[in-house]
């Protein structure tokens, strides 16, 4: 951590007090993983802009903030009520407050049966067999320092295990809530989803804050899809606009597995989303839908890597960005096609709508192709609202502002419409409209 000795001392102090709080558990095999991860993090520190993948995202404000470890893991009555509105009326859910499970808002917890749903803390106790087999195998702390930081402090998060053939009709909702009224805090949620052979589920992972506190969420999610598994994964980030969020999703797909990623970034002050997908079995398919919509002084950086390691895999990636105010955005997407991955069908598209003079987007689509019989495309666009379309709408009687809203919504709709879960699609439509000036007038339009 050469770049900021204050940050080094801070996280070392966190780690030492964390170790003490573990008491007897400090001797468990998991803790030696934590120790190794922390050594790694202490060695390399936070990523800096000297690194190619961090060229446009400066973590200095994050390093300078003296975060504390949270000590409050429940919500007051008002926040509790607001949190319930963030979830559908029923269905399985795990709710975390400042990184720890709040059992009073969660359920039903299952450690046996076809679908095992519990906190990661519980899984370390109840299902060491599955933990041993999957935990930390794909989200590599040796390679990524923020994963190392997360792994150093692994304690809680969501654990989902779909046994072979388990098909879940109802989406599982995971809601991560942060509050830091007494000063900035940091949490490191860690999630592990394992989808057994031919299993199927929809998982919704949401980050949300009832207030506008300063805090830092450093989340890591590992997703493992065994042969023929189908996972529809939504990641909806609505942190406080004063918050820092670094989220890393690592996906490993076996033969014929089908993974759909929907990453929606609306909140947060400084946000980085990493999505790394390894297509590691023939015929595996991925869809990556991304939407980022930022204004004010928000910054959002989307880093995606789709690694085609086997033949006959397909990936289709569409990321759309809407930037207003002085917001800045990054799209840094990469498709890798390895030598063996013949008949790869990979597509990547990033489109950006810039609504103000001062907003800025850096987009960098990349292809690295090492096979010769493949079909790959990539592209990026950056544009303003189409004047022809604006005129069309105004000529139909829509006031200028409303016409702008309609076009902005229509731009984002491409990545919202394919979302298969209706409750969530409707919720995201509302959130997108809520970000537009007087967007509620549009509600009946969509």
């Amino acid at each position, binding site marked *: 951590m050469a770049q900021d000795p204050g940050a080094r001392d801070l996280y070392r102090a966190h780690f030492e007090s964390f170790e003490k709080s573990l008491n007897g558990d400090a001797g468990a095999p998991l803790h030696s993983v934590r120790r190794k991860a922390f050594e790694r993090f202490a060695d390399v520190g936070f990523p800096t802009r000297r690194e190619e993948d961090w060229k446009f995202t400066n973590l200095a404000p994050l390093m300078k903030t003296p975060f504390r470890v949270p000590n409050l893991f429940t919500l007051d009555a008002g926040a509790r009520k607001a949190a319930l509105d963030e979830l559908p009326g029923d269905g399985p859910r795990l709710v975390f407050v400042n990184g720890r499970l709040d059992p009073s808002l969660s359920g039903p917890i299952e450690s046996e049966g076809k679908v095992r749903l519990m906190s990661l803390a519980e899984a370390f106790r109840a299902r060491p067999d599955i933990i041993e087999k999957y935990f930390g195998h794909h989200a590599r702390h040796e390679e990524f320092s923020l994963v190392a930081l997360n792994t150093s402090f692994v304690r809680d998060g969501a654990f989902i295990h779909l046994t072979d053939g388990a098909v879940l009709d109802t989406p599982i909702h995971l809601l991560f809530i942060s509050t830091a009224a007494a000063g900035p805090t940091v949490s490191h949620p860690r999630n592990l989803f394992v989808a057994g052979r031919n299993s199927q589920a929809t998982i919704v992972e949401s980050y949300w804050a009832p207030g506008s506190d300063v805090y830092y969420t450093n989340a890591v999610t590992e997703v493992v899809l065994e042969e023929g598994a189908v996972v529809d994964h939504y990641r909806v980030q609505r942190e406080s606009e004063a918050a820092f969020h670094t989220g890393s999703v690592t996906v490993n797909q076996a033969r014929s597995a089908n993974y759909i990623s929907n990453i929606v970034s609306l909140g947060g002050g400084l946000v980085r989303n990493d999505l790394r997908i390894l297509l590691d079995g023939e015929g595996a398919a991925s869809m990556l839908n991304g939407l980022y919509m930022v204004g004010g002084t928000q910054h959002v950086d989307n880093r995606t890597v789709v690694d085609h390691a086997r033949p006959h895999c397909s990936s289709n990636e569409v990321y759309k960005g809407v930037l207003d105010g002085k917001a800045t955005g990054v799209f840094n997407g990469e498709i890798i096609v390895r030598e063996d991955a013949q008949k790869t069908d990979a597509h990547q598209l990033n489109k950006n709508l810039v609504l103000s003079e001062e907003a800025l987007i850096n987009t960098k689509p990349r292809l690295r192709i090492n096979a010769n019989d493949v079909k790959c495309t990539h592209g990026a666009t950056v544009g303003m609202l189409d004047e*022809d379309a604006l*005129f069309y709408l*105004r000529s*139909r*009687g*829509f006031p200028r502002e409303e016409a702008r809203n309609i076009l902005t919504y229509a731009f984002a*709709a491409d990545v919202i419409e394919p979302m298969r879960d209706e409750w969530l699609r409707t919720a995201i439509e509302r959130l997108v409209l809520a970000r537009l000036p007087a967007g509620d007038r549009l509600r*009946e339009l*969509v």
Partner: protein
Amino acid sequence: MLEIKNLHVSVDGHAILKGINLSVKAGEVHAVMGPNGSGKSTLAQVIAGRETFEVTKGEVIFQGKNLLEMSPEQRAGEGLFLAFQYPVELPGIANMYFLRAALNAIRTYRGEDEIDAIDFLALCKEKVKIVEMDERLMKRSVNEGFSGGEKKRNEILQMSILNPKLAVLDETDSGLDIDALRVVAGGINALRSPDRAMVVITHYQRLLEYVVPDRVHVLSEGRIVRSGGKDLALELEEKGYAWIGEGAATAAPAGAGG
């Protein structure tokens, strides 16, 4: 209803319209014809309020009000409608809801109550029949994936629902096969009424076989060079636009007025 007096328009310093005079009374249908680049579409868009064009001289009076001082949405509220040559696609916005919202935006401008969903559905069903449009298109996103003919029918549908006092149709016939042309013309004819005026801009005489105009104007190089009855369109078809080019210089003063 519409009075255009000595209208001069330029874009990026290039003069496109060079003194247009046109007077259209309620109940009349005027055809404006002309070769490519003569300024037909510019005229249509200036009337509707497109800001990329600069009006350097002249005036446009609509029902006694100065149209040039109004925003496009105000003009729509006042009862003006432009059928676009190239209708815009709006992915994510369902056609049905779009139309109702447009109608309500205009009603709000006029201080009228908004139309509710049930009344609108009835109105829509009635109008969809006139343009022989597949009702399923009402549930699709506005113009997205529509064929050329479907887009033009959708324009006529919008026109019949928004019920304007003055409709300007910008090459609504271009690119249509004969069946679609007949349907579009039928939609236009259904809207002819003593208290509505229409300006039909077209490159070809073909549409005018179905929509018989009261007056025909020929636009060339930013000026109206000929005006006459419906026979002028036939003459033009027969002799071609080159004929206009030859007589343009001398005919220009006679073209003034309408």
